[in-house]
Every structure is written in structure tokens, then in C-alpha cells.
């Protein structure tokens, strides 16, 4: 760079000769982004499954994967904001149960489609406010707050419905959501279009808005963010609002697919959501990552699930697979960041 020369004319320690010493593979590995690993894994997985399972590459199966992972995707997009900001929302699956129940009950009370949807979204925002205010203004640790609300929301969903599932299929107001969640245009599910729009919108917000930059700054160094004029409390509240809204949207998709609002919570949902975000390269310590990686994380776990189902492997293995993938993915990221793993250990450089 030009300003270098003014300081030290002699300075030029160029690196191009590097590759001969360290090895091309090692360089590619070290220069790779945080999402390269999961992308490569996903591609290998897809190639393997399309060879071994003829059904895998059919359009029907692909739309099935999209449909069955949309709930996780929506929650994971919300969780990505929270995790980048340096927090974690453990209550997200429970919040989805409450918003789903709210939606079901509003329909049951004869509300129109859009009132019920708006009601569910409002409840989601409210739950986000509860988490966000306690964390950002009352200043209680996010782990304590969301662990508490995890339990509270879960029980609230049961109390609301007396533990019963509300069958919404025959209710008039349910029709629009049912059509949207299960409908297609030109063979493309509406849900896929929605997922794409959601992810693009979230990625744009994170990358190109002052709010998004603030979220990263907060997760990277809270004190530095505060001293440089980021409104820490408001940004924290906002990410939990987004998570609450995501829970509401996810629950609408869930109810739309199952045609019933159930107070029970899939116990692996929270783990799957958080795992997808972390597998996608978002740092659990905050300040780094993005929704692009989260999409890959969701797809990776979803495709593995699909592969297991197609191969007639018991669903009991699901948790094991998710857990192993999570640990391996995060461990690989750590290994790259610390400069471990060389692909040509034998070729140590000759001393000059």
C-alpha cells in the first residue's frame, strides 16, 4: 500500500512463496470461511444420498425436506440474531408453543384468519419483550431469563389448552394459512419462497443496516459497542423481539402443517435450532457469523434426517447424529481458527 512506502521503503515481505512451504491444501483450509466446511459436507452428503437413495433427488423429496425444516429454519434465523449479539434464547421452542396455542384458540373463538395471525404475532412480540426487557433493562443474565421463560412458556401453553390439542382443520379461519403453508405455485411450494425471502431479508438487515452492525458489535465487545454510541439495551431488546416474532411465525407454519395446535413441545427442537446456527459457523461467543451459514446448518441437519429416514434408520438415532455433527462442526472451526490441522505435516520446511 502506498502509505507503507513513506514509512519504510525497504519493507516488502510478500507472501506468495508461502504456498510451497505450507501446502496449497493447508492454505485453502486456513483461508476458508466459516461456512466452507459445512457447505463441503452438505455437498458430499447430497452426492452420497443421490447415489445410494434414488428417491432422494426427486422433486417430491426435496420439497418435503423444505417443508419439514421450515419451522427449524425460521426459529434458527431468529436465534442467529440473538447468538451474534452474544446471547442465547433457550425459550424459543416454548415460545412457539404459546404462540401456536394462541393462534389455535383465537381460531377456535371464531376469529377471522388475519385477526388470529395478527394475534399470534402480537403474542410472539410480547414474549420477546418479556425476555428482552428482563435481560437488557433489568440486566439479568440471558441464560437465567430464558431458562426461566423456557419453563414458564412451556407450562403456559399447557395451561391455556388444559393440555389438549386444538384441531383447527375444520375451522373456517384456518384456511388461508393452510393454503399458504401447503400450497404451491408452478410446482414451487409457497413455503420455499417464503423461506428464501425471509433469509434474504435477514441477511440484508444484518449486513447493511446500522442495527445489524450494532448486533455484531454487541457480540464482539459489549463495552466497546457501548462506548462507541451503540444503544446496547435497545439492540438487545430488539434481537429478543426478533426471536419472539420468529417463534410466532414458526408456530404458524407448524400449525399449518399439522392442522392442529398442540401444547406439547418437540424436546429436540431447541437443540436442533441452536445446533443449526452453530454448525453454520456463527460463533457461540457472539460477534461473528450470519444467516447464510444458518441456512446451511439447517439444510445439513435436515438432509441427514431425510437420509436416515430414507435408509430406514430408527428415528431414535436422530439426537445422536445431531449432537455428533454439532461437536464435529464446531471443533473443525476451532481447529481452523487456531491454525491446527496441516495437510502436509511431513513436508516441514528446510531451514535456511
Amino acid at each position, binding site marked *: 500500500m502506498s502509505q507503507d512506502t513513506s*514509512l519504510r521503503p525497504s*519493507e516488502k*515481505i510478500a507472501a506468495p512463496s508461502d504456498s510451497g512451504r505450507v501446502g496449497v491444501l493447508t492454505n485453502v483450509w486456513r483461508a476458508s470461511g466459516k461456512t466452507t466446511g459445512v457447505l463441503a459436507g452438505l455437498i458430499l452428503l447430497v452426492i452420497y444420498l443421490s447415489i445410494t437413495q434414488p428417491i432422494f433427488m426427486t422433486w417430491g423429496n426435496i420439497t418435503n425436506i423444505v417443508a419439514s425444516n421450515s419451522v427449524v429454519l425460521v426459529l434458527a434465523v431468529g436465534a442467529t440474531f440473538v447468538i451474534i449479539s452474544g446471547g442465547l434464547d433457550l425459550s424459543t421452542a416454548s415460545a412457539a408453543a404459546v404462540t401456536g396455542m394462541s393462534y389455535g384458540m383465537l381460531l377456535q373463538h371464531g376469529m377471522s384468519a388475519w385477526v388470529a395471525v395478527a394475534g399470534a404475532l402480537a403474542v410472539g412480540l410480547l414474549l420477546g419483550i418479556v425476555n428482552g426487557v428482563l435481560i437488557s433493562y433489568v440486566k439479568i443474565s440471558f441464560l437465567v431469563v430464558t431458562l426461566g421463560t423456557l419453563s414458564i412458556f412451556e407450562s403456559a401453553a399447557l395451561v391455556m389448552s388444559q393440555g389438549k390439542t386444538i384441531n383447527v382443520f375444520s375451522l373456517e379461519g384456518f384456511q388461508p394459512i393452510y393454503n399458504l403453508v401447503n400450497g404451491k405455485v408452478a410446482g414451487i411450494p409457497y413455503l420455499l419462497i417464503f423461506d428464501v425471502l425471509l433469509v434474504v431479508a435477514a441477511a440484508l438487515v444484518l449486513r447493511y*443496516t446500522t442495527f445489524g452492525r450494532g448486533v455484531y458489535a454487541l457480540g*464482539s*465487545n459489549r463495552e466497546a459497542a457501548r462506548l*462507541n*454510541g451503540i444503544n446496547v439495551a435497545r439492540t438487545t431488546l430488539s434481537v429478543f423481539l426478533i426471536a419472539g416474532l420468529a417463534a410466532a411465525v414458526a408456530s404458524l407454519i407448524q400449525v399449518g402443517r399439522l392442522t392442529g395446535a398442540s401444547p406439547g413441545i418437540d424436546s429436540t427442537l431447541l437443540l436442533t435450532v441452536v445446533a443449526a446456527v452453530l454448525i453454520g459457523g456463527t460463533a457461540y461467543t457472539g460477534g461473528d457469523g450470519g444467516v447464510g451459514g444458518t441456512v446451511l446448518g439447517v439444510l445439513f441437519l435436515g438432509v441427514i434426517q431425510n437420509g436416515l429416514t430414507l435408509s430406514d434408520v430408527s428415528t431414535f438415532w436422530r439426537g445422536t447424529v445431531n449432537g455428533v455433527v454439532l461437536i464435529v462442526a464446531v471443533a473443525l472451526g476451532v481447529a481452523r481458527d487456531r491454525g491446527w490441522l496441516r495437510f502436509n505435516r511431513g513436508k516441514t520446511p528446510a*531451514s535456511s
Partner: protein
Amino acid sequence: MNASAAPLVEVRGVSKRYPGVLALDNASLAVSPGEIVALTGENGSGKSTLSKIIGGAEQPDGGVVLVDGAETVIANPATALKLGIVMISQELTLAPQLTVAENVFMGRLPRRGRVIDWATVRRRAREELAALDVHVDVNARVGDLSVELQQEVEIARAVSSKARLLILDEATSSLSEHATERLLELVREQAKRGVAVLMISHRMPELYSTAGRAAVLRDGKMVGTVPLPSTPESQLVRMMVGRELNDYYGSRDCVPGDVVLQVRDLASADGALAPTSFEVRSGEIVGIAGLVGSGKAQLGMALGGAIAATGDVRVNGSPVTLGDPRRALGAGIGLVPDDRKRAALLPTRSVAHNMTLTWLPKLSKFGVVPTRTEKRRVKEAIAEYGVKTSSPAKLITQLSGGNQQKAILGRIFALDCPVYVLSEPTRGVDVGSKSQIYALLQKLTESGAAVVIISSELPELIGLADRVLVCFQGAVHGEVSGEQLQEEVLNAIAVSGHVHSEEPS
């Protein structure tokens, strides 16, 4: 020094390559028992890399390391410790949750049978600390101590672990003058007992008062070794930077104008700073001196809104809401905090995003960042503030300390604030970057800013400031300017609160 004593540790022709940079290029160095060697050079010259290799934290790509004349692989810091090589760096390695006593004996807690003998731990920790004249409760949690006390605990741990080679990597950079002097005394004492010492410091007076010779690195190459203190400082600096450094602090061509910053009865809520009043004019640099704990750090933090405070602060006549950094920034007070790592850097973000963090409100429209403008502004700022980076997208933590600091300063300077409050603006920064930062400060002041510089480096304050306020025990105890602006005067007030013969003005 001499070749009579066999070197304790010797490196021969070591090289170390990081992605994109050859950090060490065929460098050789030997340190003998009882000898104090200063390892000097600009940031990025390879000093830290060389000390890390000797300390076992890094492995050389080429060359050999000899300990007691035998070729040795120092695979990790634990191996180094077993060989008696102890490293004290600016990065503290204490466990903040544990007590002082536990930290001093971490990894080697005295036992009685299989049970840790806590009484002995505390007693011996107390003895070790007393021997070093460090007055701290051994049962205190390290995290509750000031940075300075933490550094002293770290040193106590190193000394008590029977070191044969002590590596001081910027160990004094967070210490006050007084504490530094004590540490150096201790180092000289250890050397007399036969401990070899390798010290890295940006503070020249320290090297001259302590080291017997200086090894100079430039761009990873060993340029030469010169005896100290007989080699003139100008010659040493010339070796380090490869060119003349004329007029180190620079100069500015302006007369102080109207009062821009008015401070009346500013006091920190925690009581560390008693009500303080002063004014700063446009085009003026006011220095704040004082020991650690004198309240000078709190003065800067309170002005920048970083801590809760009371009083009346006005910028160009309009009052500033205290205790909120966002309001202070909005009112035109740009703060650069003293602890870069804790309070300024975004370690997971790029150079560009670190710099634009503070510009975002001005840069963006309706909350959207115009990336093209942003990129251009970053490029301009990188050039203007002399940040050396291969790309704006590089992680900021991959830059040297000096370049990190220039990026952090650029982040604030680009805002065109009427008032700047800079706390330790050149801490942990190499000579080359320091003089660049001084030039930036002079330019900033010439353009009409009112600047407050808080620093533990008195030569820096004397070289830059129009006048210096000296803090003592939480209050300003004197203002020094003109002919009186000398280290002895500032020191006298900082230590005792007054100058012997005359009343501070």
C-alpha cells in the same frame, strides 16, 4: 556483554512465517546468566515472535533453540517453565476468579500429604508479595484488583517460581512510573543473582536504566546488538526504524482560541475523582498526569460518559449529559479509552467494521449503511491515519498493536469532534507508530480541536501539551506549563500533591 559466561538460552538462525508475513528471518540471539538484554524494534519487527519462540508459545519454522548449550525443543509454555523460562507479558495470565494467593501458586500449590496446605499458601504468598513491596490482601479476588496490582501479582508469581530466564514482554506498559521503577529494581536484583533477563519495552528510559545491551530487530532480521547505556538513543532508534526520526513529538502552528470545553465540579460517582474544574481552548492540548489510582483515568472516563459522574460539562457552551457515552459523543466529545482490548476493539470484526462503528449514525440513511460510501471512507481513513493493513477486510486482531491503535484513533478522529479525550493514546505502541500518532494529534489540534490527553508517560505529555494538570489522590493538585513543564515537577506533584518551594498555580 561478554562471552565469558556460557549462554543460558541461545537461538540460531530462527525463522517464523505466518500467513502473509515473514515474522522472523534467520535471527540469532544469546542470553547469558546474569545478563539483561533489551530486545528492541518496531511493532511487527518480530520481537514478540522471538520471545514467544523462546517461551514455548510458538514453534520456529527453521533454526534451532539451545538451552544450556544443548539443542532443545520448547514445545509449549509448560516445557519452558520446567526449563526455568518464565514469560511476563502485557496480556495477564491470571485467573480473575481466584484469589491472589491461589494465583501466585497456581499449578504448584504447596501440599501437606494430598491436601493443599492453605495456611502455607497464604503465608508464602504474603511473604513473596511483601518481598516485592506489593501491598495487597492475598485473599482478594484478582478480578477485583486494578490492572496495575494484577500485573504485580503476575510478577510475584514469576519471581517466586525460581526463574532462570525472565522474559518481560511489555510487562510495564500498564504500570505507573512508580510501579515500573519498582519492577525494574526487582529485575536488576534478579539479574545480580544470576537470572538472565530478556526485556521488551517501548519505553526507552527503562531500557537505558536496566539493560546491558540491546538487540535490534527490523522486519524480522537481527540488525545488530549494541551496548547500553553507552549507545545514544538516536542511534538505537535509527537502527530500529531504519531512518532518522527527527522531531519525535512534532509541532503545531496554532494559538489556543476560544474555550471549547468547560468542566465544572466533575466528579465520578464511585468517588475516585473529587470535583474537578478546568477549561480547554480550541487548538490546545491539555495533559493529565498522575499515578495509577490518582483519578486521572476516571477523569477521562467521566468526560466521555463511560462512567457515572456528576458536575457540569459544556462543549461550546451547551451542557453535556453525563454518564452516557452516546450523549457525550453526540455532544462532540470523542473518547479513546485506555484499555484497547477491553473497551475499544471489536476482536471478531474487520478493520473496516471496527473503524466505521462510530461513523454509522452519520454515514447511514434511514438506518441503511451505504456500503460504497463506507468502503471509500474506510480507504481514505486507512491512508490518512496510516493504518498498515493488507486489506480493510482483515481481522483487526491480525494487525500490530500500533496499527490497531491507529485504526481506533481514526475511528474517533474522523468524526471531527470539537473535543477529544484520549486516555493513554500510545500504550503498547511502537516508536514508529508513536511518532505517527503524535503527528496526527498535532494536526487534529491545528484544525481547532480541544484535546485532553491522559498519559502515564511524562515525556509524551511534556512533548505534546500546552499545560499539564496533575492528579493526586483523586483531585487535580496543580497545573504546570511553560518553563515549569519538566518531569521532576510533574513527578513531585504526582507523588506528594505539591511542589516543594512554590505553590501550584
